[in-house]
């Protein structure tokens, strides 16, 4: 098969691969589960910051 003929197949594979990966992340809520794991570390980061409290 010539290289040009392979291009649509490669594109199709890339689109399919993108869909499978992103749909899995979407459906099993992996994006938010990862964020929930990250959140406590971020809270510690914000807690450590110095603030000029004033009223």
């Amino acid at each position, binding site marked *: 098969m010539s290289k040009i003929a392979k291009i649509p197949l490669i594109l199709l594979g890339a689109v399919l691969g993108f869909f499978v990966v992103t749909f899995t992340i979407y459906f099993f809520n992996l994006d*938010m589960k990862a964020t929930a794991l990250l959140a406590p570390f971020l809270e510690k980061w914000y807690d450590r910051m110095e603030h000029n409290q004033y*009223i």
Partner: protein
Amino acid sequence: MKTVEKVVNPVKRAGEQSPGKIYNENLKVRARREWRGVKDTFYDYTRWLYLIFVLARFIVVPRNIKGFFRYRWMMSYLFVPHGMDKFTIGLRDEALRIAHTSFNFVIADVTQAIANCFRGDRRVGNDKAYSGKCVITDENSMVTFMMGFDTDKVHTILREVPTMFASNIFHQFNVMHYLDIAQQYGIPGDVCPMPEAEAGISIEDDFCVLGCCAVQNNTTCDGSLMGNGIIAKRLEREYGIPTYQLATPLRHKEPDVLEYAAQEIKNAIEFVEKHTGEKWNWDTYFTAARRVNDATRCRIAQMEINSTPYPQFFGAAFSLYNDTNYMGNSGRNADFVTIDHKLLALAQKGYENKRMYAKEYRHRAIVWGVQPQYVIDMLYWMVQCWGVMPLTDMLSVINTDMIAEVDTPENREQAYRDMAMLNMEMIMRNHTHGGFKVLVDDLWELCEQMNADIVMMWEHMSCKALTGMHGQFEEQARARGIHIMWVSHDLCDPRVFTRQAIRDQVNSYMRTVMREEPLDPSLEIIPDNEAY
């Protein structure tokens, strides 16, 4: 007691029937997303991709990363997809598209607002030329006094919206830290937590600092005035940002206050002109006025659809979209016009197809009072779990009058009165202030117009303006044969009333007073008290 005809959905919902199963008490987010059938799941997935794109486009800018690590409230930005899922519980077909079309647009708008804040912020972007043309406005203020300034020359910055308002919707615990700060400095805990949290943010020095001037508004209550005082003190004395107090009459139905209110608008415009160096443009104003009228016509049409047996656009998406459009935009952004018409077309299609949000509608409810931020999905839950259809909420019942939109010498004077009227009747003032007529009588008129048999009364326990009227509502509801379901909450603080404690008040009422069983028992108790 008044009763309404039950409406049964002849069509079985595509996909899973019990969305309550997607919650898990061991997780702080949902176990998975809802299966809505192939067509609607794919649509929801494409909107999720769009949101990820909006968020990624924002965070790739280096100054936005810097801002992200500087400001605690930015943590809610990570939970935007989780927040969006709250708006789509059990939705299919046009209802799903309405929720996404409206709220995706709001999210993109708020993301742009954060980007604008960071651009001018002295600690982050520090773009002095940009900051010199920015005017900070109050979160609860109508921005009518900015309608005549060209948007490419003067920038309106509602910095409290992403910092407090939206932040609490996406992440229920995100403002607790600021409430604690405010209380550490002696502010009592029974003040409305919204202005209290804003005061806490200011005390903590966690607001972006930008702008050549600021305009504050005597919004609706003692808490709001207290918060504004603390914020203005820091703005003026520490950061040298002059702050104008736009004093708006509260008795907005009294005709003799209008001239005074119009003069206040003139003064605010002069103040902005003085500090930005830009002039008011009547062409810009009347273009914005035409958009305001267009948005009003669309909202009236949506309310008319909601008066029928097949309501389409309601709940948090309706309320927050109106908030953004009516109050934060006020005709300045042409993109809202396209979205308004797209939403109306979707609602009309849904109505023609007799689309329903649940298996059946047993009751038709008017939602009165102010809803809690951290259980923003409550009205969708109420229709899915109990078949109680929320026809509209108090904050969405706003101006229906047209304002002058043609540029004539007479209309230029009328324009000040129109801006004053819009400002006086803004979302948080329209019914909570203005007297008995707007708070109590209007409710019964609305029940009649929309054929409601239940009033779901949010009782925000820190809001003295509404809790003071408790007995009057009870008495009059009884006289009219309308059920009144009180649901207490504390607006932004989930430690006082948890999400389930709020839902349990509806559960108790429906079981004990109405003697009914839930439509979807999987939703009666949801383990999401600890979820973001």
